[in-house]
């Protein structure tokens, strides 16, 4: 079977520190994999290596079996790797609509079109409106992104990713810093993506209840290395995860 996405011996060092240490892992198409691990385990760095924000010191990233290690972040985005960020990362002074439209436009490869009026591309705008609809932000389409409450900004972050229509969705703690009543909205969006069946989803998340419910599979990173991989219930119960989270037993 060809993996939708695969990393082979993926490694990055910062000075003497190995942040991600020879992680080999394949992600089957249509599955949702949760990546867990304590703070500083290298999860976000692992994401950065896959989406191209960082270049690996060693190892490779493969998309549908093709080595994409040499590609830049924009090129990987065009190949179908989409990424939502841990800290909200929007265009603050542009409107909600324009934020999403920039993603739709990138997907359509229209960025270098200098001679048409942007608002005349009805198809792109319609597509953006659809996405707005799914995240229930239609009423706020003309507000500047910076003016949105935090929960809506997180929704917009996810909406931008959906507008890109990637094959691989990467969510980095999508519910971080959200109030309790806002969390289900985001989870419903991810659940919706999962039920489409053809999307490969990678999810970094700390809330174990969320992970257990959504994930088909869990991998555990600890000190940059992949230490466990498998069925959610099994992995969560395994001693290695206990150790990663609780700390190594040290003689008293």
């Amino acid at each position, binding site marked *: 079977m060809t993996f939708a996405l695969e990393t082979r011996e993926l490694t990055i060092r910062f000075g003497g520190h190995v942040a991600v240490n020879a992680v080999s892992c394949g992600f089957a198409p249509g599955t949702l994999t949760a990546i867990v691990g304590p703070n500083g385990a290298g999860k976000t760095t692992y994401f950065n290596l896959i*989406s191209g*924000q960082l270049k690996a010191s060693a190892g490779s990233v493969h998309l549908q079996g093709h080595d994409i290690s040499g590609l*830049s*972040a*924009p*090129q990987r*985005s*065009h190949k179908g790797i989409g*990424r939502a*960020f841990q800290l909200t*990362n*929007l*265009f*603050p*002074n*542009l409107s909600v609509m*324009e934020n999403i*439209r*920039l*993603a739709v*436009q*990138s*997907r359509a490869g*229209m*960025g*270098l*079109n*200098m*001679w*048409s*009026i*942007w*608002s*005349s*591309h009805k198809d792109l705008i319609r597509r953006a409106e659809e996405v707005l609809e799914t995240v229930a932000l239609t009423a706020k389409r003309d507000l500047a992104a910076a003016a949105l409450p935090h929960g809506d900004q997180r929704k917009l972050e996810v909406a*931008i990713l959906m507008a*890109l229509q990637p094959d691989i969705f990467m969510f980095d703690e999508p519910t971080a810093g959200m109030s309790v009543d806002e969390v289900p909205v985001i989870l419903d969006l991810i659940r919706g993506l999962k039920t489409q069946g053809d999307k490969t989803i990678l999810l970094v998340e700390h809330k174990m209840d969320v992970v257990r419910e959504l994930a088909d599979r869990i991998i555990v990173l600890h000190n940059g290395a992949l230490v466990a991989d498998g069925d959610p219930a099994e992995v969560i119960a395994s001693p290695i995860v206990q150790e990663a989270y609780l700390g190594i037993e040290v003689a008293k």
Partner: protein
Amino acid sequence: MLHRLLSGDLPRSRVLAVLLILIVAGLFLVPFIFPGAKALDVAAKICIFIVLVASFDLLLGYTGIVSFAHTMFFGIGAYGVAIALTRLGPTWTAVAAGAGLALLVSLALSLVIGLFSLRVKAMFYAMITLAVATAFQTLASQLSDFTGGEDGLSIRVPELLTSAFPEVPRLFLGVALNGKIISYYLLAATTVVLFLVMLRIVNSPFGRVLQAIRENEFRAEALGYKTVIYRTASNVLSALFATLAGVLLALWLHYNGPDTSLSFEIMIDLLLMVVIGGMGTMYGSVVGATIFLLAQNYLQDLMKVASRGLSGVPVLRDLVHPDRWLLWLGVLFILSVYRFPAGIVGKLRMKAVVKP
């Protein structure tokens, strides 16, 4: 129709719309309302600087890049035409050749500067462009065989554009329609076209990407936009439009020298116009250029009066000396960066949103 012409970017403020209509109407009626060489000259300068300021805003306001090399491209345009006309004689072919060559030089230069240094931080880029522009200015005054050195080049332009054409001009509403009037209207028409083209560019899908880069370059990259390409494209476009503004300048003045197109003072003027008019809005360039150039004349006259009135008060007299007008615009500049960074246009639009 208007919507298409303005690329969907309407003034969005009644006051601004009225102001713009007044400016445009004023510019087109100047020969008839304010006869005399001086008024026409100020109006022509306004037109040229609208193009120049708009092209600078494409870079500074829309893409968020500070460059101090913008007058270099302005100078290349002006020198290109001036040198071609000196060498090839006053023909339209010479104008086309000069402009074409100047555009090529600007293209190459802006591409090199862009690719070499656009990856670095804003301050770094500002410093590098400042250094390059200074070197270019020195080059222009050293190559006096071509450029006329510090004296510059006085040029003969195609006959159509000279005040001696035609021998017996027709009178229209009491104004003699000679070559000077013709060249003014050609200039004004070119300004309108170039302005609308730039307005279109900033309102195209491409223009939106530029704004996205200004707002959050990292995220634009993650969306799949190769930002180096866009930043370089913005740099090149802005340089080409500045070059065209330079062509217009040389054709209007029948002269070009370091002080009219290359000097750092003009760069400063440009900064003042962009910031006061409003960064990130094309209309800001219209408002900024008009206000600045009117102030340059009006303010100096006012200061002359004030200075004479205060001739007994030592320091104050010197502070309002007409040569010190830049002092006051400098103060205005600093205040506007602090107080209303979106400039006059931004302020007007904001007001329009607050009370619809």
